[in-house]
């Protein structure tokens, strides 16, 4: 086969073992030889290889320490008296939730959350969905971030801007978030919100000391969500949504110490869950949420399952901050 070759090299210098030297003088002017040529080829091929290690190199160079806690201002985890890290949980007793129909107001948990966090319109970190019941009628489902233990959003974040905490919650560092929104695509509960523009927030929010546990003020081009108020829980204060609930339908607690409270009574979290057939949303997805629901449709608050509708949420501030814009959900 080689003998039949009509290709350039064979033809140009048949039988020569070192044809390069034979033709070398011809290009003496250019100063490039075969070695140089090979070297450039090799370098070209090699340049493919190092790209994936760039970030590793940067890390090795000490430019950034990715293992360090990503957030500034994140407090030390809360502990029980014997030193175990608390595992925050939320239990929503749907039997007591009437979507605030009885007081004729928009859901108070949502309103309290918005006011406490200066949440920009139209973000409802704690949102009350109205779902159809199998036999007809509806139920109200207050839905905060589910604080998954196998969080799809944390898994997909390219920069570690959203992360799980030792307390079992999921936070977002808006100072690292690049706004790629893959976490929003990944969240199966629709619990993530994007700052599409300069969010409308009251002027006092601009003075707040930002931390991932206290996402104020909102930062344009980043993702936000319910943070489970761990900073408040550590100081013995219940989250805004629980404080706001007129029916005391929401419990906040610690699975480690097996305790939960709705602000009126203190109960055993495990007993409350087990004895009332508690479930979690989309349990089959394997996300292991930390938010539990006790089935119901507001009957304990005197609600009839067939009286649908709740008042729409309002935001007390609309375009008060300079350059602010609102957007639809």
């Amino acid at each position, binding site marked *: 086969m080689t003998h039949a070759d009509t*290709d350039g090299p064979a033809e140009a210098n048949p039988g020569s073992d070192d044809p390069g030297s034979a033709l070398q003088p011809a290009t003496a002017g250019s100063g490039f030889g075969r070695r140089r*040529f090979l070297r450039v080829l090799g370098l070209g091929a090699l340049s493919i290889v190092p790209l994936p290690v760039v970030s590793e190199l940067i890390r090795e160079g000490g430019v950034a320490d990715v293992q360090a806690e990503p957030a500034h201002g994140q407090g030390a985890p809360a502990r029980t008296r014997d030193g175990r890290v608390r595992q925050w949980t939320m239990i929503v007793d749907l039997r007591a939730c009437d979507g605030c129909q009885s007081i004729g107001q928009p859901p108070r948990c949502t309103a309290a959350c918005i006011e406490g966090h200066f949440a920009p319109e139209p973000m409802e970190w704690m949102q009350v969905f109205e779902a159809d019941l199998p036999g007809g009628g509806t139920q109200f489902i207050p839905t905060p971030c589910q604080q998954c233990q196998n969080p799809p959003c944390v898994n997909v974040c390219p920069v570690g801007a959203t992360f799980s905490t030792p307390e079992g919650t999921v936070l977002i560092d808006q100072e690292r978030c690049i706004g790629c929104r893959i976490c929003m695509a990944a969240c199966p509960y629709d619990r993530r919100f*994007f700052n599409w523009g300069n969010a409308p927030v009251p002027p006092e929010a601009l003075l707040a000391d930002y931390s991932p546990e206290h996402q104020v003020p909102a930062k344009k081009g980043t993702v936000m969500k319910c943070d489970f108020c761990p900073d408040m829980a550590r100081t013995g204060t219940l989250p805004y949504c629980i404080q706001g609930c007129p029916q005391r339908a929401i419990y906040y607690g610690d699975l480690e110490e097996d305790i939960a409270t709705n602000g009126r009574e203190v109960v055993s979290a495990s007993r409350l869950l087990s004895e009332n057939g508690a479930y979690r949303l989309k349990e089959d997805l394997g996300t292991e949420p930390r938010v539990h629901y006790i089935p119901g449709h507001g009957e304990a608050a005197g609600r009839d399952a067939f009286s649908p509708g709740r008042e729409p949420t309002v935001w007390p501030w609309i375009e008060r901050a300079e350059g602010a814009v609102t957007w639809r959900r």
Partner: protein
Amino acid sequence: MAVDRTSRGGRDVAPLNDWQARLEETALTPVRQTGRRFWAVVAILLAIIGWGVYAYSVQLRDGLVVTGMRDRISWGLYIATFVFFIGISHAGTLISAILRVSHARWRRSALRMAEFVTVVALICGASFVIIDLGRPDRLLNVFIYGRWQSPIIWDVLAITTYLTASITYLFVPMIPDLGLFRDRLAGRSSRWRGWLYRTLAIGWNGNPAQWRSLASAIGVLMILIIPIAVSVHTVVSFIFAMTLRVPWDSALFGAFFVAGAIFSGIAILIIVMAILRRAYHLEEYATEKHFVYLGYLMAAFAAIMIYANISELLVHGYKLQEGVEFHFRQLFLAEFAPLFWFYLLGGLCAPIVIALVPATRNVRGIVAAAILVTLAMWIERYFIVVTGLRVPLMPYEPASYAPTWVEWSLLAAGLAAFALLIALFTKLFPMIAVWEVAESREAAVTDDGATRPIGEGPRLAEEASR
């Protein structure tokens, strides 16, 4: 003098024959003369890009609120266009690598253009991810804090690797032609051009040792680039498939995306070839045969796409798990139905018919099919993104999404940038792979299959052992 130089720079010591001279002339013409029409096209493209820059500045100033995207449909036209561009970047890989590996001789005229398309499409595609970012100012966080666990990082790695590889793969087989340009244009073009070709030809003088190095380099690259290309579009699909969204929850997604990528890549290649053929009078080298063969290849991939669609739709549709019914209704019956049916019938079935019916099996018919496929595949990308996100996750009314003028402007700018970069490439670099075309002609002239063109498999071993 000119003959002397050519014999040194080109690959033949044998005297130039007419055919070779004409080939080289054709390759050199776009570089030598630039007509008024070219500048008019460039001016129009620059105007579109300028408008896109303005639109992007508006987006930077006000945030992504100027787009139609919102929390529930949080990706839209930008990500669809990103997927589309990365898809058509597979043109180069398929045509050059796969056809090189499989010794398909007819590929050679299409080679260089396909490799142009690859590099340019990758650059355009990657920029759409950046356009989509809420905080482009923090782009470097990807390198500083990058997490291996994130599909986005897989994308970054795959795309940068593929870009480097395809630039190398564009460059290496071009070296002999750059040497030709260097020699033929010496003293006859502007100084920077002389410098450009001198530098890029990296001392090519066409001696056998260099040919051997070139052959082994191409041999390694053409094998290497296939897994890289396949992995690129697979991980692009993973940014969807790694989520818990019902319409994206498919193990088939990677293969589906790769097939779609090659499919749309062939279509774009046909269109680019047709335009360049018309503009630079390449009828002799990009013949009807080339178009028909590419049309066959496109039809084959249309068949693969039909198969993939059937498996995907049937497996999901048969069981109708939660959310699937909504998804199918919006695709087949409601909001997206007209365009989705166009995708199925016009984009997947029609190209097969066009390639098979003798009456339409010509340049015009194949180009028409390619345009259909390009439109359909863009629509498909758009639907994957938008319909996938539209399926409600919680009890709320389905969201709606319509791109705004900013998004359309940036799409137009992206396409214009694609066209502009290709146009500039044709003015700088040999768009016909001169030595490879010459080689296949020689091979055809010298007869049978006894001739093995350089750069192909078994010969490398023989070369090395000599």
